[in-house]
């Protein structure tokens, strides 16, 4: 059964130095408040896993929380480069960042295998690309060819992702810790089901989860910690609760371009905000009005 705790407690209990952590949310419901809490608690040597590292991992990478990254598309969506990610890869600042790189289809299938409890997934993919020959974090090939046992057709195998911790943001939970999310659902369900531990931040905890069209429900017994974090997806959006703060994504380009400017942002907007404060989860940086 999920425990309903503060975000600071959830991060302190679930995420440890050296963990492999998947914070998912495909441009929608990105768990930014949880990301900032991980920075505030100064976690180190994390292996960050995420299809689209986005601004959330740019912040964690720049803050020195990560030594490895497993991903498939590392840009600032609709804006341009992730400058902290690029600085880490191109100049090893604030430290070296080892990469394992996939396609979206490959990452999605890796999460499906993790959630399904099988060691790998198969797809038609990677064939003829440079990605096919790249090593994984363990130095061995990250994807491998496999022959179909029925037809003999050559396909591609990708290894299951089983993160130590999955972190997602959802619209709501009830007081028993059942989680409900709707709209663009990404790979959040697969990430939670494939992980050893999980944290779900929510816009609100309610008495009753009334049905929503197309909503996913993660039963309380599949989640470890639920933490209320209104605005916790800001500057991404939470359908039904808050809009994407596109100005912040644009502003991030300038904040993150320069190391000193980024460090000042860390001081004022992450370390300068009380860890338990829900206001720090997002409203400090701009409007999240529904």
């Amino acid at each position, binding site marked *: 059964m999920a425990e309903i705790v503060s975000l600071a407690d959830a991060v302190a209990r679930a995420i440890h130095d050296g963990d492999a952590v998947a914070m998912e949310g495909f441009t929608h419901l990105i768990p930014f408040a949880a990301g900032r809490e991980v920075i505030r608690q100064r976690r180190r040597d994390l292996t960050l896993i995420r299809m689209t590292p986005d601004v959330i991992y740019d912040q964690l990478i720049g803050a020195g929380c990560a030594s490895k990254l497993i991903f498939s598309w590392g840009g600032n969506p609709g804006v341009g480069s992730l400058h902290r990610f*690029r600085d880490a890869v191109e100049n090893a600042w604030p430290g070296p960042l080892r990469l394992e790189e996939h396609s979206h289809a490959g990452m*999605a299938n890796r999460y499906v295998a993790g959630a399904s409890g099988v060691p790998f997934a198969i797809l038609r*993919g990677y064939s003829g690309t440079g990605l096919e020959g790249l090593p994984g974090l363990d130095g061995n090939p990250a994807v491998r060819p496999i022959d179909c046992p029925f037809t003999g057709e050559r396909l591609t195998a990708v290894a299951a992702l089983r993160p130590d911790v999955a972190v997602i943001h959802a619209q709501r939970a009830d007081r028993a810790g059942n989680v409900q999310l709707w709209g663009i659902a990404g790979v959040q369900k697969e990430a939670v089901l494939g992980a050893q531990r999980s944290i779900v931040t929510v816009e609100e905890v309610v008495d009753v989860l009334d049905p929503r069209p197309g909503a996913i429900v993660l039963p309380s017994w599949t989640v470890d910690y639920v933490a209320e974090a209104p605005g916790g997806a800001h500057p991404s959006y939470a359908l039904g609760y808050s809009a994407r703060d596109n100005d912040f994504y644009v502003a991030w380009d300038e904040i993150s371009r320069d190391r000193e400017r980024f460090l000042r942002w860390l001081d004022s907007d992450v370390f300068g905000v009380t860890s338990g404060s829900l206001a720090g989860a997002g409203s400090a940086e701009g409007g999240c009005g529904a």
Partner: protein
Amino acid sequence: MNATGPAAAAPAAAQPAAYTADEMMTACAARALHDGTACFVGIGLPSAAANLARATHAPNLVLIYESGTIGAKPDRLPLSIGDGILAETADAVVSVPEIFNYWLQPGRIGVGFLGAAQIDRFGNINTTVIGATHAQPKVRLPGAGGAPEIAASCREVIVVVRQTRRSFVQRVDFVTSVGYGDGPGSRVRLGLTGAGPRKVITDLGVLEPDPATCELTLTGVYPGVSVAEVRARTGWDLAVSGSLEVIGPPSASELTALRGLQAISQGSEGAA
């Protein structure tokens, strides 16, 4: 050059010949999409062109974004592939594993619409790294995203990219997405089910694969663009079709629709 607000649109209506190179490219890309086609769309130039097509000659174009939105009908340009307007207007919203496995992989999607940082003479695309090695790149680019499987499995691919000597290269530094590989026969050998890039649409004109050699060949130029100019902005010895076409300029209705979409989109910033 994208800043075409209402103030700029008014005089343009009186002088329909005034348009930017990006507007010409976007209109040309939109024309390549047939009504009723299912189209896998990336954000940026491809999304602007696909939405222009929907607003003009192809109202029943099915827009599919990798966030899992099928049949999205945005009335403005989405800010990102996860923009709420895509989910709110879609026929169906599915998970990311489902969009790739059930929809893209079996060849259900007619056209894949891709951008590129580098493209080579066989239409192979690089969006991963610039530089000799992947481990120590000169420039780290965003990476693959959905592109490798879009390029492999859509029934055909259209690439939209601005043309420079740095982007149109003899050989890409890294093959993120396969076009025609090393030439004829590569796609079959690799087991790629789609036909590959049918058109590469640039800010100068259109390149199409030669049916025999698979090499990208100049088949069309925009009004006022010379072959010499296109060759000067190509990093290989560009072949030119014997029946080179001069592509018509954007029509007044294309420009009105495109500028309208861009004006609404600028006004709605943040309203995801």
